[in-house]
């Protein structure tokens, strides 16, 4: 048995946890011990041996302290043309001096909130890493949007990460969108340098009646980084939740996205794009729980893999017995560009109601030779032609991003890559 599977090395993390929310932390700790690190071959972590990775990739299992971030760093990280609120974080800690706000948005530190709602949506017993975060997070932000308030410009959560010797960063965010409110969040993770670390993020999103929440997550960290992200959302009647998960780099990345549709006529849209090269390993697990009749969910995840990268997709649509008249659609498409790239995909349906329309589709393939030939026959060189086709493939997901600055940024990143080894 390794030290990590016996959880000895996480002790340092537990000891360093601040003396806030003691009962909450205790619960997280107990829940983590009850579940343990996912064993090799455990169904939920079958293709993503995180315990092993953490063991070999981390020399130090202690929390990373916030580092100094300059205004210039913020300026250069914000997308060109971005207009909106910027909230800056260093290793999970909020930096108010570099951040701004807007009308209708209330920003509090989690430690300032009495009767904390943490853990009520991202339940610690559902995932060992959510439990670990609950036991060990330092602090984080509580964001709330007023009822009937529509914030048109996006809110950028700019998360800088930097650690020495593979420390642990545990960001924690609570987002609450009031009834009839509207807001867009962009959760952007960047590495300050190339040193390895482990990010264990939990985001809880609570949507009110008729709320419209968009949550984009952009992961662009160094290729030494191990990341686990748990994003859990509860939405109510007539509300809408849209998410986009873009992963461009990292060593081993695991994203758990859970959407609980709790009110009728609610709509969930979950989109994702992973462009992997080198040895990057990305695992997207999504889970939509249809708990009520007349709700809809749409899911589209696309991936382009090259070099020795590995992609894992597991999409689960769960339709409970009372959730009649459910419409649920799921699609996962992958393109493999190299001999050594691997994809493991499992689009899963669990349907307990009969009056439903559910479908899923999944494809794995390569670029269409005929389309490539068509373009080449018209004088477009092979690399450009390939780039065009791949861009068109990814475009279906990118087109769903409303914010121009974010979309343009990702398009640029993709174009830079397509010229090289993609």
């Amino acid at each position, binding site marked *: 048995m390794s030290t990590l599977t016996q959880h000895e090395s996480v002790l340092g993390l537990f000891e360093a946890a601040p003396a806030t929310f003691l009962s909450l932390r205790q619960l997280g700790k107990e829940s983590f011990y009850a579940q343990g690190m996912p064993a090799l071959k455990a*169904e939920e972590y079958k293709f993503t041996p995180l315990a092993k990775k953490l063991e070999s990739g981390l020399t130090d299992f202690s929390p990373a302290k916030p580092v100094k971030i300059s205004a210039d760093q913020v300026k250069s990280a914000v997308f060109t043309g971005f207009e909106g609120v910027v909230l800056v974080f260093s290793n999970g800690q909020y930096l108010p001096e570099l951040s701004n706000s807007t009308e209708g948005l209330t920003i509090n530190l989690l430690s300032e909130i009495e009767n904390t709602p943490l853990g009520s949506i991202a339940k610690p017993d559902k995932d060992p890493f959510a439990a670990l975060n609950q036991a060990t997070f330092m602090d984080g932000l509580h964001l709330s949007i007023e009822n009937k308030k529509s914030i048109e410009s996006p809110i950028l959560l700019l998360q800088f990460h930097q650690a020495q010797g593979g420390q642990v960063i545990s960001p924690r965010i609570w987002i609450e969108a009031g009834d009839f409110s509207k807001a867009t969040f962009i959760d952007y993770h960047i590495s300050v340098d190339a040193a390895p670390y482990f990010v264990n993020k939990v985001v809880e999103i609570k949507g009110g009646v008729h709320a419209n929440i968009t949550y984009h997550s952009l992961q662009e960290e160094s290729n030494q980084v191990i990341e686990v992200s748990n994003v859990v959302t509860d939405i109510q009647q007539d509300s809408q939740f849209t998410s986009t998960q873009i992963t461009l780099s990292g060593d081993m990345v695991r994203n758990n996205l859970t959407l609980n549709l709790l009110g009728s006529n609610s709509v969930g849209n979950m989109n994702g794009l992973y462009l992997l090269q080198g040895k990057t390993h990305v695992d997207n697990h999504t889970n939509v729980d249809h708990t009520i009749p007349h709700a809809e969910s749409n899911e589209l995840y696309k991936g382009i893999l090259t070099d020795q990268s590995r992609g894992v997709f597991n999409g689960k649509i769960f339709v409970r*017995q009372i959730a*009649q008249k459910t419409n649920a659609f799921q699609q996962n498409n*992958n393109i*493999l*560009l*190299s*001999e*050594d*790239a*691997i*994809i*493991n*995909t*499992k*689009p*899963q*349906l*669990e*349907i*307990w*109601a*009969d*009056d*439903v*329309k*559910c*479908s*899923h*589709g*999944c*494809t*794995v*393939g*390569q670029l269409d030779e005929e389309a490539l030939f068509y373009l080449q026959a018209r004088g477009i060189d092979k690399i450009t032609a390939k780039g065009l086709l791949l861009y068109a493939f990814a475009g279906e997901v990118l087109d769903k991003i409303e914010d121009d600055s974010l979309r343009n940024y990702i398009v640029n990143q993709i174009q830079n890559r397509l010229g090289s080894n993609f």
Partner: protein
Amino acid sequence: MSKDNQILEDLNSKEYEHGWSVNFETDEAPLGLNEDIIRWISTKKEEPSWLLEWRLKAFKIWQGMTEPTWANVKYLKMDLQALRYYSAPKQSKKPKNINEVDPELIAIYERLGISLHEQKRLQGIAIDVVLDSVSVATTFKETLGKLGIVFCSFSEAVKEHPELIQKYLGSVIPMTDNYYAALNAAVFSDGSFCYIPKGVRCPMELSTYFRINAANTGQFERTLIVADDSSYVSYLEGCTAPQRDENQLHAAVVEIYAGAHAEVKYSTVQNWFPGDKEGKGGIYNFVTKRGICAGDHSKISWTQVETGSAITWKYPSCILKGDYSIGEFYSVAVTNNYQQADTGTKMIHIGKNTKSRIVSKGISAGKSQNSYRGQVQVMKRAHNARNFSQCDSLLMGNQCGAHTFPYIDIANPSAKVEHEATTSKIGEDQIFYCNQRGIATEDAVALIVNGYAKEVLNQLPMEFAVEAQKLLALTLEGSVG
């Protein structure tokens, strides 16, 4: 709406027609499972020592294994020590041909609609009949023998063709494969063996009919089909069991070996007792079936119609080892009342230019749960592998469930893999369309279900297709005609 309810009511109230049993003298092993029982079975069957060693080895491995729990089925665990692992009708001496078989036994099969008299049977099907633990008769042996085809019971094959058995037994499904395969390897009692020599096209369908008669017994048969290079065989399997209150275990193993350019078509209509309306009784059907396309250009095709069993746990698979080999899986799984089925396939692409096709149609009614669980794996060296999978589920009634667990694992960029699945109930617009044209709701449902399953039923050999259609009709009686 009331008419729909009526149809569902009818469908739920359907009874199992093969639920009778017959009392006759049997030769039984004592209750329980231990090394002595295995020796007892082996002695009873006058087996050579290598086979006994093989069984004991499997038993040791099995003892170290635990029952799998990953399947999407819920059931009370069976006490394996309370079972009898061998039960055979008492026959004074081994019958040489069909005329010497106990008329009482023949009567059982007549009642099931299976005539053992060659002249009475439709031309073109040779049948091996297995009652509880032993094979009672094999027809058309001589006709087949002239072509060099071996078709006989497993125990006979062990005696007469030990070299073939030793070569192929456990070569596709090793005893270490899983809990039930190991159990089967330790206690298997009989089954069918067939060998098609090089270049021979088997002129008739080969068939095995399994019947569980005795109470408190488990049936553990083992089928081994070997198609040598450039041969062809179509193989059918059918099964029924009496209606009893307690659950019975059926843990079979089927191994198929296909040499270069060989083709094996394996069809099964599974109609074990599914339990009564309250979910009491029924067969636990935990079966391991796997074929290997060992040679280039070989082909294995599985077709299954699953209507019976309380619990089904069955994944007929293909290992596509030879270049240009083809694997196919066609399945209709119908569950009603409290039946639970977790079934699907595995297509393992190893050779270059291999192709596989999966068509799975699930129909759930009553309070049943129907799961498709499949895997398409393309290994690193399997260039130009191609797979198409389609798994559709049809739901009838609001208390049943349909689940899909497809695993797609691709490690070669030239692979083209497509998977699609849908779940829905019969569209009201479809029924309405039929109604408008003067087709009664009941007939419309029949029409739609038949059309839905047609893609798979079309794959069955003619005589079987008729039986399968009848079975579908019976399982969903009142809605399918």
